[in-house]
């Protein structure tokens, strides 16, 4: 496949869950509690895209090709897109934009606190994603800032784990995936350090 088509293709694929949710909503296929389904699914897709974004670097090391990097910003922004939808559903259809109630909720319910922190971590990443911002910050500082994505993925997993009542299988799968991705990085950097030292 020609390289110039790859970006629109990945973009379309990443938009599919959104289209599926809109279609499900319009055709009444989201079950008895569609708002809950929408909130859960957008949250899950935000987490999935965070993890997919964190797969890009290992994919480059694994294949020895750096083409994958061209998708990283877009995938990260899709994580932010689904996180925004998730947040908007919570603010609008769970709390009806009642600011006092929202503040109370963030204070009282630990999993909401974690979810809110998670969103605050994603915000600077999305805001500094443009080329202009990379230039302004400088590559080194930009890279340092974007290490927040590890913390964001971790808080997203924690948020999911805290929300589950008794069956922790699903969040534990995501936590395991994140652990693999982070340990991989650690090993990779160790190796590179020892290679440059020798």
């Amino acid at each position: 496949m020609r390289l110039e088509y790859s970006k629109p293709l990945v973009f379309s694929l990443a938009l599919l869950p959104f289209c599926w949710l809109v279609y499900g909503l319009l055709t009444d296929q989201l079950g008895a509690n569609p708002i809950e389904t929408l909130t859960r699914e957008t949250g899950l897709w935000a987490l999935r895209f965070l993890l997919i974004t964190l797969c890009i670097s290992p994919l480059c090391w694994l294949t020895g090709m750096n083409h994958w990097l061209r998708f990283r910003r877009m995938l990260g922004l899709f994580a932010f897109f689904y996180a925004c939808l998730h947040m908007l559903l919570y603010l609008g259809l769970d709390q009806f934009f009642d600011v006092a109630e929202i503040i109370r909720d963030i204070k009282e319910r630990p999993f909401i606190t974690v979810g809110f922190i998670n969103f605050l971590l994603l915000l600077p990443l999305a805001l500094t994603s443009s080329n202009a911002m990379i230039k302004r910050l400088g590559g080194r500082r930009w890279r340092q800032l974007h290490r927040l994505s590890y913390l964001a993925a971790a808080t997203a997993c924690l948020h999911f784990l805290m929300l589950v009542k008794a069956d922790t299988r699903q969040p534990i799968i995501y936590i395991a995936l994140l652990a693999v991705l982070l340990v991989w990085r650690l090993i990779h950097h160790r190796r590179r350090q020892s290679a440059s030292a020798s």
Partner: protein
Amino acid sequence: MWIKKRHPWDLPESEVTDHKTYLNRRKFIEGAIGVAALSVMPFGKINAARGEDFDGLSSSEFSTDERLTSFESITTYNNFYEFGTDKSAPSALAADFPDPAKPWQITVDGECDNPGVFDYQEFIQPYTLEERIYRLRCVEGWSMVIPWVGFQLSEVLKKAQPNSRAKFVEFTTLYDPEQMPGQRRRVLQWPYKEGLRIDEAMHPLTILAVGLYGKMMPGQNGAPIRLVVPWKYGFKSIKSIVRIRFTEKMPLTAWVESAPHEYGFYSNVNPEVNHPRWSQRRERRIGELLKRETLMFNGYGDHVAEMYSGMDLRKYF
């Protein structure tokens, strides 16, 4: 005291055809013809015949006139971990529950003078079924309005003659991992147990339900018989009951055992006491967009608040 001696040739009470059934023999014959006709029809139709209607149900002064939640929502959005933790799992997996080849028995025992083991039909036969339209509030922050078919639990308890040590009533769900695939994993300590204080169990609002929407109880809603306690969070209303036991000590219930800091024995609907995961101030009525305020005791305070006077409901949540 009159003690009836049973002779081997005596017909047990459960075998005696009651007058109503006797008079209904014509209807029975018609029904048999219907079943015979159905048996030549495609398979799906036979299953539909299992949901035969209860007719001539009396109505109740305890019923609410709020808009009913749709049958579809009530039967597809279920928390019944014995069939999986997903809300859609019970309706997918419990359509044929319970297996008709395994007769359902209910044990009544513990601190009472008249214990017994009953077949399902024998157990419910003495009681007049009525329709009770109750609000159901789940601890997760959603609610429904459900037209149950059932009878007061108090009638069963009176018959069992609890003794002076009976302070609580413990209920147990069937344990059968073959029929209930969710029990193959230990998400909760199986079998599921629930409990009520004896005065709560005797309260006229507390019912044993055997159906909803005038139909036999669907598997996913706790067939064949379940508890309904409308002023408490939904998980108190234990499904698919096989045992009712009078106890002196407070029973250890499934969710209290699983997470004692999150769930209390009483679990009365209370908008002032939050669960760590769900604010209890408001609820989403299934089928509605806007949330509504949650009412103390789920709106049944006039009937039940008295039982808790003088209790600190923050402590006894």
